[in-house]
């Protein structure tokens, strides 16, 4: 099956290449030129002139394709109607995302950065390029705002998670949403930039990559079984509080089955002595190599060495 796939897919691409008939856009005679636009839209033109889109050195930039009208469309009717709304593509909120994006994709559709745009969740949610990028901007990647604020403007729930006490350094700008997710689309769920969640996490947490002699199955399968990468109220971005997180899988005689109630805290003196299971780093006080280890004897399978 896999070998067949490896042969079939390249053949399919060759076939598609041969059968594809490109339908280039027809020319139009209704263009008025950027100088005409500049007369009324001086500020917008000035910002465009400073942007990467005005670079003639880039062969397929708007500067080599008709300037303002390469994105906004032919301007003759707009001029005739004295700039009336709807007489030209204005990239406002009333225009559908698909229509706006199609203009950008005329030039950028071939770029590797948007190769998966057709399959992206943003596209199916009618998010358009200009929701995040400004054609007239001179900022990094023409973004309208810096990450993560730009992403938070739609993903408020993620902003709240990132404000929680256990989190990645997103607020400090040391990690960006774009480091893990591809907003232009990717093959995996949530547009993550890897074939599997763990392969993504290991890019920064390479010490967790192993392979280890003793492995903890849910750890190897998916980091998100125990961690919430966007932030958590619990330490180490854990989805739930220890030791109960561990106990929901490990119930047995001796300590895995004990209810670690308030009396097991530092100040819970009901038993006269303290327990190791609830305080400080909880289960990790002893089972420190929970991500994998090389202990011998009974220390290995219990992840205590």
């Amino acid at each position, binding site marked *: 099956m896999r070998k067949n796939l490896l042969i079939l897919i390249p053949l399919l*691409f060759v076939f598609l290449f041969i059968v594809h008939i490109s339908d280039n856009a027809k020319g139009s005679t209704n263009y008025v030129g950027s100088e005409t636009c500049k007369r009324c839209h001086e500020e917008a033109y000035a910002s465009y002139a400073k942007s990467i889109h005005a670079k003639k050195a880039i062969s397929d930039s708007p500067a080599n394709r008709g300037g303002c009208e390469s994105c906004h469309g032919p301007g003759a009717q707009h001029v005739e109607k004295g700039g009336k709304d709807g007489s030209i593509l204005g990239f406002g909120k009333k225009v559908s995302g698909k229509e706006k994006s199609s203009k950008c994709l005329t030039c950028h559709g071939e770029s590797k950065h948007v190769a998966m745009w057709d399959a992206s969740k943003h596209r199916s949610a009618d998010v358009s390029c200009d929701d995040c990028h400004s054609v007239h901007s001179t900022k990094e990647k023409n973004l309208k705002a810096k990450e993560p604020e730009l992403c938070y403007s739609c993903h408020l729930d993620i902003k709240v998670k990132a404000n929680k006490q256990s989190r990645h350094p997103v607020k400090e700008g040391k990690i960006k949403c774009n480091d893990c997710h591809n907003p232009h689309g990717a093959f995996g769920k949530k547009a993550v930039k890897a074939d599997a969640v763990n392969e993504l996490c290991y890019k920064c947490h390479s010490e967790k990559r192993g392979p280890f002699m003793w492995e903890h199955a849910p750890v190897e399968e998916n980091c998100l079984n125990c961690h919430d990468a966007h932030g958590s109220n619990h330490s180490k971005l854990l989805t739930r509080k220890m030791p109960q997180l561990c106990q929901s899988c490990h119930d047995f005689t001796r300590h895995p089955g004990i209810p670690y109630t308030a009396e097991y805290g530092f100040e819970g003196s009901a038993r006269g002595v303290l327990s190791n299971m609830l305080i400080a780093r909880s289960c990790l006080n002893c089972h420190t190599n929970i991500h994998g280890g090389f202990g011998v004897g009974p220390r290995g399978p219990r992840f205590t060495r």
Partner: protein
Amino acid sequence: MKRISIYILVTLCSLLLLTNGLYAEDNKPFSGEIKATGKLVDIDGNKAKFNEYRDLKDGVYGKIRLKFDDDQYFMKLNAGDIAYDTQNYKLEGGMWGKYKMYFKYNEIPHNFTYDAKTFFSGAGTNRLTTGAPFAIGTPATFTPVNLFDYSLKRKQMEAGLKLEVLKPFYVDVSFAREGRDGIKPTGVAPITSPISFIEMPEPVDYVTNSLKAEVGYEKNPLFLSLTYFYSEFSNDNQRLFFRNPFNALTFGAARDDYLTLPPDNKYNNFSFRGRAKLPLDSALSVKLARSETRSDYNLLDYYIRATGIQSVTLSDSKFDGKRVTANYDVTLTSRPVDFLGARVFYKYYDNDNKSDRITQTDTLVNAGNPFTTRLFDYNKRNYGAEFDIKLPAKFSLTPAYSYLKTNRQRGDLPKTTDNTYSLDLKWAGLDFMTAKVGYERLNRSAVHQIPTMVFFATYQARADVVEKYQRRFDAAPMERDTYKASVDIYPLDVLSLGLHYKNKKSKYTDTVLGLRDDKANEYGIDADWKISNFITVNGYAEYMDTKSSQVQRYSTTAAGLDPNVAGSANNYNWKLDQKGKTYNYGAGVEVNAIPKKLTFNLNYDHIKSDGFSDFSFFDFTPPNNRDISNVDDYRKNSLSLKAKYNVSKNLAVTAGYAYEQYKYSDIAVDGYLYAYLTTPTAVSSLTGAYSAPSYKANIVFAGVTYKF
């Protein structure tokens, strides 16, 4: 690095400032910005938590941006937090549309706890020593006290080249190196019985080198790409040796106790990505990838017990780890008519563990019979479809279905099957409003079996009882419903308002012991309003509540593990409801007091978390005061006020004040002790990691920015 960085930057600045004068104002290819901000920081409380990912202290913070940009070439230099632990630099340059080169340097601190305490000498190294064994039974023996900081720092460097000159072909090559060093907390149980533990400093001295090379072709209708990624991780410390204070044998004897640390590893990934544009607004996308991870580790054939050094016979003294993954993705998207779009996908991911299986013989394990490590691997097969249907009256409907089958080499739940159905409805019938509702249903079924206790065969009788009822939540059969609704209102170009709600309920249908229910609600609102050219306001508020319920069995005997057996003091079922509430809100105001001259910014954020553990005991009634009322309870307030005055086109001054307060309370650290009796005879020792994280901080800052 710091000193060299400053010299380079100062030289570049001077050069560019001088050169800048050679060009006319309106058409200058050089531009830049130099900013210096003085800060006074007063912290009352935990300095490490305040500076968890930052380096805020009294001093002058520099920021430089330089840019050269003409019709052919460009060069940019950004430098921030110069000479601080968060310093970052990026230099990039190239020829428009032809090539681009870049170099980046970045530092990320991660501070956990300052002035942690240990009785060990050698914190930060891989050998911890202490003068004499403990006199069992008294915490007073934890002397001397040595101070150290739990803190990590990442130093990241990356250089890369992107070539577009051969368009439609392109080449991207980059090399990255990350060094990570510092100390993080770890812990060990130094003896098996009676139970005690020692928290101690683990040295971190990692280096990760990575190389990425991509060549591709991007010209409609095709996009093709081949990518190679190689990453090599090395750890200077394969083991942390420590003198076991409970075992006099390790004092003066040949061997120390030890903790194994992460192994060196090498990872490579080779992938092909392709996309072909098809007729009828369709596209076929494919990804094929293969990765391999290797590690090797020299094993030691002993471990330390309370009564001596225990030898273990190993089938091989060296472990060779190898994990191979294969990934196949195929996605077909199509929009043959304007009112119908579709996405059909297939994904297969195989994670194959080809590591050595090591056989061990230990007289104290498995009745002295050999036991062999198990290898965990798995594969996932996922396919599904999503449709985008435009309906009359500006309604659109998105039904979707996904099937996921997972096979894993695991004793209890080797197979799971997920069927996920979802339906989203969107209405954009008004020019000023968009409304969405959505529903998703996940049905997970699983094959369950009672695992074989390979390493501790004597526990098989207990497993035979409890595993009938235990289901582990990561693979347990479940039903999950997710409801969501949102409304976006934008009556004016300068005003927008968003409301959203989400409800998620998971029910673990076959679980008797383990996590049985999980619920979460989210309510949110956010708004932006540019009231006039003088004032812009924004705000948001979000409330989340969560509740998870688990049922467990406490028992001291195999037979007592059966949850159907009537409860007694030594055998009983108990239930825990963990509840959490999170409130987060914030607001900001920007006032342009004098347009283009004087601006004020005021921002406030508040987050509060309130957790509660509600215990119930069945058929047995222990004391009633056992609920935990402070489970990761915290509140954080942040306030900042900033004024910016543009003295001239080139010069601006800023000044401001910020206040931050963080207050934390949790059962795990309240009343924290560094040393205590675990049982009447066993002593445990802590270092202070993560304890007392609360703080208050006042920051006053003033700065000047010069643009040219």
